[in-house]
């Protein structure tokens, strides 16, 4: 059974935190929500797990005991050891005895946390703490796994471990929705949802997101129309409408996800500016 948020609108005071946003997560797949600070990622995740009330829209999610949710905050108890954290959360979900122990040790092994099992959570590195949070959210084998920025601030080696754990969960049939601010890792997911200021900029596979962008992107040594150009290393990338002819000193490129999202964001800012 697939899970979804449909046409969700959420208001925080005067601010539209989500404006008509939809996402569907199928079992055995990973959907990544990307966007910067204030894009609406956390609001969307909280809507799916039933932590907030929508002004408009609908949600389909399993019962709370079939959901695993890792919040953006640490998600573990600093004064408990790694194993105590696992046992506490496992107990809440009705795991006990040998089953609890087996599940706990299997997850800790896969996360590379076995040797740290008797350490206090407060003594773990940031990456280890996120991995522990993930194990706690996964312990009861939820049908729906919702992870809020599991990899933010995590070093590349731990990040690869986390992605492997996420992949394992999906391969075993879980529906996974996770958020990130990093576009390079978003390319790993089967489906993407790109949010900006509470609205959907693009969605679908990487190819679908690329296809959302009309016009072309070039690279050159200087910007020609500053509002439509951005830095990449020492050079400038620039977006052109189909009706425009880029000058001779720039070269058309195959845009990556970063380029596509920047170009779509610029267009959206421009539209908002034009309406004012």
């Amino acid at each position, binding site marked *: 059974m697939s899970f979804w948020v449909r046409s969700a609108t959420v208001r925080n005071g005067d601010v539209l935190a989500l404006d008509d946003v939809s996402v569907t997560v199928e079992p055995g797949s990973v959907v990544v929500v990307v966007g910067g600070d204030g894009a609406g990622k956390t609001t969307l995740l909280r809507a799916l797990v039933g932590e907030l009330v929508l002004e408009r829209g609908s949600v389909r999610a399993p019962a709370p005991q079939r959901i695993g949710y890792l919040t953006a905050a640490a998600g573990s108890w600093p004064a408990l050891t790694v194993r105590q954290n696992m046992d506490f959360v496992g107990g809440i979900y009705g795991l006990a005895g040998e089953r609890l122990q087996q599940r706990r040790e299997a997850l800790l092994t896969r996360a590379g946390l076995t040797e740290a099992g008797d350490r206090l959570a407060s003594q773990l590195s940031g990456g280890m703490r996120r991995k522990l949070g993930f194990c706690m959210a996964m312990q009861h084998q939820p049908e729906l796994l919702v992870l809020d920025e599991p990899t933010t601030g995590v070093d590349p080696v731990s990040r690869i471990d986390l992605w492997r754990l996420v992949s394992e969960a999906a391969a075993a049939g879980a529906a996974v929705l996770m958020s990130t601010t990093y576009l390079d890792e978003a390319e790993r997911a089967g489906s993407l949802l790109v949010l900006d200021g509470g609205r959907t900029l693009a969605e679908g596979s990487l190819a679908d997101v690329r296809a959302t962008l009309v016009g072309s992107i070039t690279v050159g040594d200087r910007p020609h129309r500053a509002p439509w150009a951005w830095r*990449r290393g020492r050079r400038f990338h620039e977006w052109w409408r189909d009706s425009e002819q880029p000058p001779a000193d720039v070269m058309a490129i195959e845009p990556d996800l970063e380029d596509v999202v920047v170009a779509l964001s610029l267009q959206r800012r421009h539209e908002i500016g034009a309406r004012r």
Partner: protein
Amino acid sequence: MSGDSLVRATRVSRAFGDTLAVQDVSMDVRPGEVVGLLGANGAGKTTLIRLLLGLLPVTAGSVELLGGAPDRERRRHLGYVPQSLGLYRDLTVGENLAFTAQAYGAAPAQLTDALRGSADVLVGELSLGLQRQVAFLAALAHAPQVLVLDEPTSGVDPLARAALWDTIREQADRGTGVLVTTHYMQEAAQCDRLLLMSRARLVAQGSEADIVGETTAAAVRTDDWAAAFAALNAAGEPVMLAGRDVRVADSDVDHLRAVLAAAGIGADVVAVAATIEERMMVLARETPEAVG
């Protein structure tokens, strides 16, 4: 002689008790270049930076900052933006900038277009992207010759990231040497030169291709990624999801084909260049003896 370098480490080591946090590292940062410092947690990046800035004495080797010992006087020409930003959240933008400028004896920075009109807003009320811009302005007001940035664009949206990189590049164009530590490959790709640390040593430097070196990965294209993933995972391969396919770092293509065939899974397996992250994972798995 330091030659052209703004910052130079020559065969630097630093021990904490019996543990070497930095071992025999030589590197430099020259005027106008943006150098990326990469490495897993515990690889020694932070210790190296503290040695370069003179905040920690070396156990062996030598460090030069702006042609001499990294003392208090030379540190006046440094700008530093920590990941935590180092701003006072309950002071306004204007108050934060005035405070830092006074500490360095400089005039407060001019607000950028994006911050115009925000001088009287509390820093804690700004978006993360704008907070990062304020931290940059505060660090740049005294026109530092060396700029050290810790994950400068972590958490911000792509447009804000492009704006921050504009600022970094403007500084470099003016001759400032910039050292950026990052976990993110997009940020690494913006640098002129990369340094990779692993287990206290500098293990590679140069372009992205130089860093990846001979490490390869296998891209496994299949109609059923979950089955391919499960089979390779069960065989102990470091397998990962990659879009609607899977990827295995540092593994033999023929062996992977055999594992998949034995599991009855049709797949197309091709060797591709590894990513920097995959290279780092391979380094982390190697024993310290093998690295040395």
